[in-house]
Each structure stands twice: as C-alpha cells, then as structure tokens.
C-alpha cells in the first residue's frame, strides 16, 4: 500500500457520512398557498339570487286559509323580438327588440321606470296579516303571458324587492308564444 492510498483511507475515516436532511421550506410554502387559496374560495360568490315563494295552499288542506289582499302584477307581451344567433355560443340566441308591458292590478304600465315608481307607491299600503294581526306589505303575485322570458320576471322581482316587498309569489303562466291559449 503506497502513501497516497493510506492518505485516502485516513481521509475516509475522518469524514463521517452526512445525515440526509429534507428541506421542508418548499412544502410549507405550497401548503400555505393552498390554505390561502381555500380561505379565499370560501368567500367567493359565483352568482346573485332573487328569493321568491310559490303558493303553499295547493292541494287539499284541512285548515281554513284566511284571505289576504294581494297585489297582482301581470307581465304581458308587446313584441316577442327577433331571434339572433349568439356568436359566442351556437346553442343559444339573443332576442332583439323583445318588449313587454305590465298590469299592476287593473292599471297598465308600459315601462320599467314607471313600474318602479308605481311599486314604490304600492309598497306604502299595508294590510293586516291574518296569522299575526300585524300590519304588513301586501304580497305580490306575478303572472305571465305567453312569450314572456325569465329576464322579464327577474327584472320585476328585482324592482319589487328594492321597493321592500318581501312576499313575492307566482300565480302561474298563461300560454306560450306558439300557443297563447295553452294552459
């Protein structure tokens, strides 16, 4: 064994093998990012909503329902509009020139602005609640004619909710665009 080999052997003995250590920093970084992401995701809202009610007194009920004064709002069709294909989505279309008008009770209302002010005035009228006896705003019942679209109804509910009407119910539809007399 020559001097060089001996030297190498000595060096090997002196140097102990280092223990492998895992660097946890990147993992912790990613975990924190994940945590922050989920915290943000929890509060993210996708869409808006408009709450409304359907009539409860459907079918046979044993209890006697007390009548309550309601505000009837009918959405009627003025112009169904022309179908224009949507450039972004081939499955859907847009309606151009689509126009509706409204009946608030017997009164004809032709624009949304007018309806908004009419509803604000109507919201001032309060009637006694048959259940509690307390005075409250009248419930609104929305009825639709054939050809009326989802957008027309949501616009009306939107305005009614802003006028502080809390009870908004649906009274069913009257026909379709193809068959206005259909039930």
């Amino acid at each position, binding site marked *: 064994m020559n001097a060089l080999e001996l030297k190498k052997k000595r060096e090997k003995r002196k*140097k102990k093998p280092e223990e492998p250590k*895992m*660097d*946890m920093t*990147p*993992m912790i*970084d*990613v*975990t924190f990012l*994940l945590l922050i992401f989920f915290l943000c995701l929890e509060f993210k*809202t*996708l*869409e*808006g*909503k*408009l*709450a*409304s*009610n*359907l*009539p*409860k*007194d*459907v*079918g*046979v*009920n*044993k*209890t006697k*329902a007390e009548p309550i004064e309601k505000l009837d709002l009918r*959405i009627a069709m003025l112009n169904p509009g022309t179908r224009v294909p*949507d450039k972004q*989505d081939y*499955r*859907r*279309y*847009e309606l151009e020139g*689509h126009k509706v008008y409204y009946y608030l009770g017997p009164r004809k209302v032709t624009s949304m602005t007018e309806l908004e002010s009419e509803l604000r005035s109507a919201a001032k009228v309060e009637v006694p609640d048959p*259940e509690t006896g307390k005075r409250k705003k009248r419930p609104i019942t929305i009825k*639709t004619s*054939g*050809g*009326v*679209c*989802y*957008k*027309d*109804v*949501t*616009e009306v*509910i*939107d305005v009614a*909710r*802003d006028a502080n009407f809390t009870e908004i119910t*649906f009274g*069913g*539809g009257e026909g*379709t*665009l193809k068959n206005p007399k*259909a039930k």
Partner: protein
Amino acid sequence: MSKKDVREEQTEMDMTPMIDCVFQLIIFFFLVIDLQNQELEPVKLPVARFAVPDQPPEGQRPIVNVLQSGETIYKRKTYLEADEQDYSKLQGLLEYFAKNMTKKFDKAVGKELPDDPLLIRADKWTEMHHIAKIMETCGLTNVQIWRVELAVGEPKAGSPGAAKAAGN
C-alpha cells in the same frame, strides 16, 4: 472530495416534497372544479341591480338548470326534454328533493313543508312557461316545495345588491 465540493452539495434544494404537493394540488383542483361545475350549466343569466350575492346555503339547495329550449337539467342529466309533455321524470326528481329537505311545520297549511329552497338557473331568454311548469310541479302534493330562488348574474362590486350583502 475537496471542501469546495462538499459546500456545493449542501446548497442543493430537495424538490421532491414540493413536486409531490404540486401534483396533489393539481389532482385536487381537477376534482373540485369538476364537482362544482356538475351542478351549473352554461347559461347566460339576466343581470339584476338589487340581487343579493349568492352564498352557499347551510342546508340542502338543489340547483335546476333550464336551457333556452326548455330542457331541464340537474347534475348534467336531463329530466325534461325540450317541448316534452311528460313531466313524470321531473316530478320524480322534485319529489326526491322534497324528501331530503328539512321540514318545518306550517301553521297556515297545517302540515310539515320542505323548508329548503330550490334554485332555478335559467337562460335570460328562456320562455317563462318552461319555468312555470317546474313551479307548478313544485306545488304537487308529494313535492310542496314553496321556497324558490331565481339565479341572476353576479351583482357588480358597488351595486346596491352587493352593498346590501356587505351590510351597508
């Protein structure tokens, strides 16, 4: 091995845990996004000025999508085809919803009614009679779902609806 070499070895970063985490993250997001989108069909919602931003509810809230044709979809499965007159499948679905909803006794009606809402998401140009049929089916004796929410476009930041939700 020289001292210089040893020093260089020590500065190397072990990327294995990070790569592991990133892969898990990717898999997780794929699953989550898929589950989230399962309930939402690509419909163009109408915009409402005073709508309340939709927060995930505590109880059950099934989401029914209605396309322009009237096709009614729940979790990517069609329960009512466009212009279909047989509502039995839709009725079965609503009965199933009602059965799983929390019930509350209603004094006015004198019986227990489902107390969770049903969210209807329809395209803005969907004819209302398609939605009215769903509402009509909701009123059937075995269903009796009376709380309905209509989905609208996300209220823009600063809109009255967004302000209301923030408690202003």
